[in-house]
């Protein structure tokens, strides 16, 4: 139900044939092409370090958010 559906020739219904639709859109703009993925990137050393810093940052953010909420509740 939630998957893209191809009608017999939906382009034609809008005054466009499927061939015209294909010519108007870039190849990777088509819904069916979007099922393909770029794939994981390989992180260089400084990015690996940055990602670990980010993990620590997220934990710190969580602590700050909880503290802020607790202080606000206490008034």
């Amino acid at each position, binding site marked *: 139900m939630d998957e893209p559906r191809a009608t017999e020739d939906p382009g034609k219904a809008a005054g466009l044939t499927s061939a015209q639709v294909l010519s108007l859109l870039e190849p990777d703009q088509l819904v069916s092409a979007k099922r393909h993925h770029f794939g*994981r990137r390989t992180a260089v050393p400084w990015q690996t370090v940055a990602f670990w810093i980010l993990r620590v940052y997220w934990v710190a953010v969580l602590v700050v958010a909880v503290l802020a909420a607790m202080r606000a509740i206490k008034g």
Partner: protein
Amino acid sequence: MRSTSAPGLVTHEDRDRARDRLSLRRAYQTRGPRRWLWLLWLSIGPGILVMLGENDAPSMLSYAATGSRFGIGFFLPFIAITFVMAVVVQEMAMRIGAVTHRGFSELMADRFGGMWGGLLLTDLMFGNLLTLITEFIGIRAGLGYFHVPPVVAVSAAIVVIGVAITTGRYWTWERLIMALAVFNAVFVPIAILAHPAWSQVASAMVQFSPIPAWNTNTVLILVADIGATVTPWMIFFQQAAVADKGLTPADIHRGRFDTVLGAVLAAAFGMAAVVATSTLFSHGISLHNYQTANFASALRPFVGRIGASLFALGIVEAGLVAAIAISTASAYAFAEVRGQSRSLNRPLKEAWSFYLTLIGVAMVAGAVVLIPHIPLELVVLLVNVVAVLSTPPIFLFLLLLANDRQVMGEWVNRGWQNAASVIVGALITLAGLLFAVSVLDPRLI
């Protein structure tokens, strides 16, 4: 940049997007002065929507509070600077969307893995829900000025969001919301009605003065203004909207114009709110309570009944446009990570989970606002905490994607764009740290 062979499957979404591309192609083929305007008209949208969406109810009330507490001075040009920062960030999101035709969540999960994609999605959904609650607070308060009961106000807003998505066409949805967003301009006539000293306005813009005293309140307003103009949902929304609109690398320069135009309009309307309420400052009235009705009632002796009513309506509009944009950003991001249909070009029956998420988050936020005795001040505080502290990591990933040659090809960031981004990133991080310190121990600022 990736190239794929064109598969034979053509969907309803492809057809609608192709119709928009055909309109652009026809505009390209015309001659004369109308050509540029026509091309521009067809290309603009996501940039204007994201910037005017960011002039949301809490932002406009924050600007109003700034005007009433500090008058015309440093904060007026500072608002303009924060929008320059927003342009640097949003231009990257627009460019990535036009080149890859993918939303931010999808690319994040693709390039950095499901853990980061999921973490940022969780953060976004939580932050967006809290922000949506503040938008409904604004809508409720704005309509409350006209004695509209809260249930009616919230329900009416949800109906508007629902009607907008029944179009089944991105283009129609975009034009409807843009028409609504234009009403953000009501703050300009209110500013004029307040009869400010225009020479003082001009002087403040040029000299960044008078500079307010450095204290916790000043720092919090500085941080709030930065947090009000560079937020996570804006990145997710504009990149996904650009992809949904079908913009391509050939449209990037017009996408930049769209983003800058949106920023100029939003900055002008934000500054107008400051100017409008500066009349309260000059009459010794300082409102510490951010309630819409308080501002509208306090402004009434100076801007008249019409001006006060416009102020309340302006807050309603700001909340409504932001609620639509934020709930759409949530739906885009959620569907992207789950690999589901994610386009406003899809009919309801083909993308029910996308539309259900969109209207669902709005309904949950609206329902929360209607709960009696709910600590809304706590929600507003948490919105600021989550928004200010979660922006730096998201900005880092945006910067990495904008420099990812495998994804962006020749459209990677240039040296000056990276330099500008580093400055903006440093300011955003500094704002986050200051805010964290202010939460942990305000005496340290």
